[in-house]
């Protein structure tokens, strides 16, 4: 067990890392950041998606030890002043949220997209979210949500 400092949601947090622990495990069990979910632990389902240095990343495929020194943003870090980000708000209003298990990963992936492309077309939205599986929505309202977020002219 090694002590290390992770930069998560703009804050430095001390954690103790067992070499094989993934970032997902450390976020969830040591930092109480349970937003990122463990849906498959194989990098396929996308429900563990976080941002690492601004890029969408699978927290389940990142060894915590190798996340040291990088900027990690989880779904909990998207709010500003206790209010949902515009992207988050768009997801709520568009009716994209059903069981919600995929939503943290989905909204982080959408946030990553909009941070580098503030006006994506439908195809670009679908490509950006292609790695986030949802079993409830059929994706239509998820794409609607991202479109809604772009017409609000906001990105995170």
């Amino acid at each position, binding site marked *: 067990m090694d002590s290390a400092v992770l930069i998560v949601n703009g804050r430095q947090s001390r954690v103790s890392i067992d*070499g094989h622990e993934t970032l997902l495990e450390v976020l969830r069990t040591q930092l109480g950041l349970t937003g990122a979910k463990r849906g498959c632990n194989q990098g396929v389902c*996308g429900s563990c998606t976080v941002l690492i240095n601004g*890029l969408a*990343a699978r927290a389940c*495929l990142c*060894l915590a030890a190798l996340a040291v020194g990088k900027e990690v943003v989880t779904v909990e870090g998207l709010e500003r002043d206790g209010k949902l980000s515009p992207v988050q708000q768009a997801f709520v209003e568009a009716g994209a949220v059903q069981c919600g298990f995929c939503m943290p990963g989905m909204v982080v992936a959408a946030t*990553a997209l909009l941070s580098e492309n503030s006006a994506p077309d439908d195809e670009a939205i679908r*490509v950006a979210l292609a*790695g986030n599986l949802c079993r409830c929505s059929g994706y239509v309202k998820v794409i609607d949500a991202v479109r809604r977020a772009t017409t609000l002219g906001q990105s995170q």
Partner: protein
Amino acid sequence: MPSIEFQRPKTVEEAVALLAGHEDSRCIAGGQTLVAMINAGLVAPKFLISIEEISELRSIENKDDSIRIGAAVTHREVASYVGLLGSNQIIREAAAVIAHPAIRNFGTMGGALAHGDPASDYPTAAVAADGTVEIAGAGVRRTVAASDFFLDYLTTALEPGEMVTALILPRASVGSAGHYLKFSRVDGDYAIVSIGVTLTLSNGVCTRACLAAGGLGSRPLWCAEADAALCDTRCDDPAISRAARHLLDIADPVDDVRASADYRRALLPKLLRRAVRNIVSRQDAERADG
């Protein structure tokens, strides 16, 4: 589970020395495959050498006669690198269809090549691009043609203590084009069959071709006869069929959950034709545009 010790060397030489000095050690870059394997309990390395901080591995170098893609360059970076032109376009196309964006953000060239999965995308594309894999071992660098690098399922020409340092692509010749065509069950899946084609057309006649196919055996299919079948032709259907037949002769597909061997064989000529037609019509369009 025993813990893992990490090292972060700054040079290839340091990395190789660490590899040689520790049993049960591996290099890790993006970890998109390695960590999935650790999570699944398939491997349990005790020593991981992160190559993220080795600057020569993180760059794409555009040289006079070649393009050198460092082993730690991510699929995302490759997919957006505008310097991959002509035949080398195939590498961009392959990078763009690997798995999903989050995987592409962190997965690397070196990791993908070293893993040697014939159903993954880079091996077939690298072979069709006539690429060369640069390998570093103790005190020595060597290169292996991509077509000789992939030996079997998850088995490459890497010897113990060696690591991939780059994929080297020949500079694309004038009139050359490259295309990677992937057929899978759903988007982002491993390919059932994938086709890599690079060729050079001169007034509509193929002067050079390199064809590879993935998903039809334990390594990407390639043979000189298939390439020759397209040379000096206008890439018409009979020529493509002849090329396909040569590739089928060396194909050794298996049944798996994605498809049967028979179906893969049936797909090869059709997808090869589609890939070649895609390139030719793209070239025609470019010529028409002047």
